[in-house]
Structure formats: C-alpha cells, structure tokens
C-alpha cells in the first residue's frame, strides 16, 4: 500500500498502450518507478483445457487465437509438434508454402508492433503506414485460406488446399513493394533525434540477464545472444534459404527496435526466395491415416469412403509419447509440448508462450526508469495478450 512518499498508480487493463488487457501496478517516487507488478490472466480462455477435448485437427483453430497478429506461425508450431510425434514428414511444396505463410505472418506482426510502439511513444504517423501494408498481407492470406486474421490454413500433414496463381501474383507484388515501405518506416524513426532520445539506453538488459530471465526472440537477440530457432534447429526447409539473423549489442529499446526492423527485411528476402523456387508436388503427406483420399477415389471405393469418414470425424490418432517442438514466433520461442496417449485428443497440450516469460521480467527491468519509459519498454518487448493468457 502507498507509504509516505510513494504513489501507487494502476496502469489498468483498459489502457491504450498495454496492447491488450494487461494490468501493471506501479509504485512511483515522484516520476521514478520503484516497484512494478504486472497482473495477467484477464484474457485466459482455457485453450489448453479445451484442447484436451478436441481432435488434433480441431485444435489448429484454437492455436490461431494465441498470437492473433501472426496467426500462421502458431499453426506452424502446433502442426510441426503433432507431425513430429506422428513421425511423418510434409512434402517439400507444403514446407515452402508454410514458410511463406509464416514469414508473411511475422511481417504482419512486426508491422503492428512498429505502428503501436511508435504510437505509444508519440510518433503517430507510422501506425497508418503499418496497417496499410498489413492489408496487402491480409489479401494474400485471404486468397490462400479464405480468412484474414485467423487463417487456420495449415493441417496435420500439410495444408488445407493448394495455392492459386493469384496467390503467387499477390506475393510477387508484395515482395516488390515492401522494401520501399520498409525504407519509409526507417526514414520516419531510425535517425529521428526524438526517437533516439526516447529509446536509447532505456530498458537495458544484459545478455546474461536476458538468458536467465528466459527471453527468446528479438528481445534476446537485441541483447546480443544469437539464438534463432530457424538457424539453431532448422525445420521445414529453412536451411534452403539464405538469410541472416540480426543481433543487437546493448540490449536497450533502440536495439530491439533495430533488430525487428532488420528482421522484416530478412523475412521479405525469405518470402522472395521461397516463391521463386516453389517446387511442384502434392501439398499433403501421403499417409493413409492423416490425409483424405481424393474425391474421385472416394466415390468409387467403399474403403476410401470409410477412411474419409474416419479421418473427418476423428482425425489422426497420435501414438503414446511426448514431444516438444518449437518454432520462431514473432515474439520469441513458441513451443508446444504435446502428450499423446493413443486417442484422437491430445492428453495434455502445453503452450510455451514467449510473451508470458517476457512480461515476467518487467518487475526487474522497470524500476529505475521514469513512468513514460515504462510505456516504451512494454512496447519494445512486444506482447500480445492472447498469447500471454491463452
């Protein structure tokens, strides 16, 4: 409770700068933060418990809603975890398309991040440009899956359906346009003296502290640790692409900003390489227990009809076992620990959400800063409450 000198301020769940329903209780000495306590859980929907009562295919729709700004990356992580447990490998064409969808989602998430981060600090122009370019990504994702924000485009064993020539055209146009847009974002912020004064030497986290706090993703790379799952444990043909992983050195807000901006440039390079070298072939694995048989076979063969019915109603049965698989989400390492026990529902699914661990370090990072720097720091670690609370 408030003592003689300290004021308790509630940065409540309804706040435009907390990017969701995050509540931070701050104790201030004048304008200096002395103690910070985040309270999360206002968006808790019980996704892990619901997943225990759903088929493996149905859980894909739940995972979309985790980090809703970069939905395809969540599907990516979950599908890879289930496929690792089943022991199947997805065909090359599906792997490339998954990479394209994943990197476009990462771009979309970073565009929201840069727009809202700049908006919180006061630079209001960027959010409009970020959302304008994000509409182009939405159109591409809608062409593939029919949805904009929560595509649920990936399936266990591949994709829901193949892509159309319009998709390829849309991606090529976006790849041609985006470097100009990114250069535009840079001219607004990177050398801006006000931006630099607001973000340099704020919220500095050393490399050792960042690793101990459990940071992953751009927040860890901003502090100088080059851990990127796409390079550390290459999966789904990431080793075919030539890209670099940006690493900062001081670990302040400005470094994390630069890391994410450079990540956007690298992501568009990956999308470009993937769409130009897209291999031909099927988009679903050729496994009778996972993939539907094609409709003309189903209409003529009774066993194919039965198999289609079983796959649609129950889906794949995972073997008894446990698996942990992670993917480089836009906030950090998004991991799925799945326990299978031979049924069609996962026995236990635990989602390792990067933003949850990032918020847990706020009580250590915030004290010693001014109150307005708290907004900058919360924006720089880039949280999405859907992922934090699940």
């Amino acid at each position, binding site marked *: 409770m408030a003592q003689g000198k300290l004021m308790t301020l509630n940065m409540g769940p309804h706040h435009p700068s907390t990017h969701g329903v995050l509540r931070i209780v701050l104790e201030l000495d004048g304008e200096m933060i002395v103690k910070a306590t985040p309270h*999360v*859980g206002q968006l*808790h929907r*019980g996704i*892990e*418990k*619901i997943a225990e*009562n759903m088929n493996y295919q149905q859980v894909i729709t739940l995972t979309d809603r985790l980090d809703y700004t970069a939905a395809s990356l969540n599907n990516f992580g979950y599908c890879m975890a289930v496929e*690792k*447990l089943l*022991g199947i490998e997805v065909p090359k064409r599906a792997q490339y398309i998954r990479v394209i969808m994943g990197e476009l989602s990462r771009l979309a998430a970073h565009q929201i991040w840069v727009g809202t981060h700049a908006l919180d600090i006061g630079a209001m122009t960027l959010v409009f440009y970020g959302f304008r370019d994000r509409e182009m990504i939405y159109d591409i994702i809608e062409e593939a899956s029919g949805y904009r924000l929560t595509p649920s485009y990936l399936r266990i064993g591949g994709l829901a359906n193949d892509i159309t020539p319009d998709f390829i055209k849309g991606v090529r146009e976006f790849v041609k346009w985006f470097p100009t847009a990114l250069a535009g974002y840079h001219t607004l912020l990177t050398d801006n003296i006000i931006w630099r004064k607001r973000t340099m030497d704020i919220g500095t986290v050393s490399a050792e502290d960042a*690793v*101990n*706090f*459990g940071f*992953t993703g751009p927040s860890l790379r901003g502090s100088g*640790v080059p*851990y990127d799952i796409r390079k*550390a*444990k290459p999966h789904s043909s990431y080793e075919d692409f030539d890209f670099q992983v940006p690493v900062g050195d001081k670990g302040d807000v400005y470094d994390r900003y630069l890391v994410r901006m450079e990540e956007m440039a690298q992501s568009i390079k990956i999308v470009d390489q993937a769409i130009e070298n897209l291999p031909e072939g099927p988009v679903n694995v050729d496994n009778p227990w996972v993939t539907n048989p094609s409709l003309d076979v189903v209409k003529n063969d009774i066993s194919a009809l039965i198999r289609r019915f079983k796959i649609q109603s129950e889906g794949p049965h995972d073997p008894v*076992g*446990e*698996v*942990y698989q*992670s993917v480089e989400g836009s906030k950090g*390492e998004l*991991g799925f*620990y799945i*326990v299978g*026990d031979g049924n069609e529902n996962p*026995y*236990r699914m*635990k989602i*390792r959400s990067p933003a*949850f*661990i990032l*918020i*847990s*370090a706020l009580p*250590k990072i915030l004290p010693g800063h001014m109150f307005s720097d708290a907004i900058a720091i919360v924006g720089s670690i880039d949280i999405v409450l859907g992922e934090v*609370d*699940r």
Partner: protein
Amino acid sequence: MENVKILERIKAKFPEAVVVDQDCCGDLQVTVSNDAFIEVMQFLHDDEQLAFDLLVDVLAIDNLERRRKPRFEVVYVMISMDSFDRLLVKLAVAEGEDVPTVTGIWQAANWAEREVFDMMGIRFAGHPDLRRILMWDDFEGYPQRKDFPLKGKDFDEKWDPDTIEVL
C-alpha cells in the same frame, strides 16, 4: 553434444539420480529422483560443457486418466546457448508433495512455476511469490486437473472445492 554424451555426463556426476531416460522424438528426456533434484538442476546450469542456461518452460502433466502413479509429473525444458542442445528433465510428484523451486537458478521459472501452481495445484517450496497468476486470487480449485469439469463450476451454487460437488 549428442544426447548419448549428455546422458553420460549427467550419469557420471550423479550415478543414482537418473531414474529412467527416454528419447522423445529426438530430444533426450531424463527422469530424475526427487532427492537429488536440486543438485542435478544446479549442475545442469553450472557445468561448462552442458551449460543449460536458458530454461524454456516448466509444465505439469496430470496422470489421473492414464492411471499412473504418482499423480503428477513436472517437466522442465531447457536449452544451452552454446550448442543449442535441448534437454527435458522430468520429475514425478505425488499429490500434496512440494517441489523445490529452481527460481534461484533460472529466473525464468518464476512465472512458469506460478502457472503450474495455479493450474495444477503443485506447490513449490521456496518460491518468492507463489500465488495464482491466470485465475483470480480467491479462485478455488485447480482448473487443469483432470477431475475439474471442462465447463467450470457454477458460481451460484454452494459447492465443495475438494470434490467439485454441489452441496
């Protein structure tokens, strides 16, 4: 380091601590006995060759429906920043038993253990701030246990928190 070498190195230092080890689709999973647990975790963090300095996650599994004893298993997922090796450490916990906290070794365990306490009801001895995190503070019951109903409890009825039955 390969999984075989990691296992050998742990067994060389703590010959009786490793109860069982299995391969989880390419990752090494080591079940550790409860007595040597904290020493093994400290060793995994401090050793120069293993150096598992990033604790990725702490999670718990409720074995009620699988009818295994003991009831809970707590799994720690960790990664080494030098070699990017991944290791899963499992601990078998009976109902009502406390688990020593690893917050002193990895700060990342702070909120992860709070979530395990909130959702499964496993207490962590020595934790700096063990209280509920995702549910509200005076919630009764542990939602992710297998005997907690999916649709939750009806707040209008008076009910017994241990048996989840309406009084």
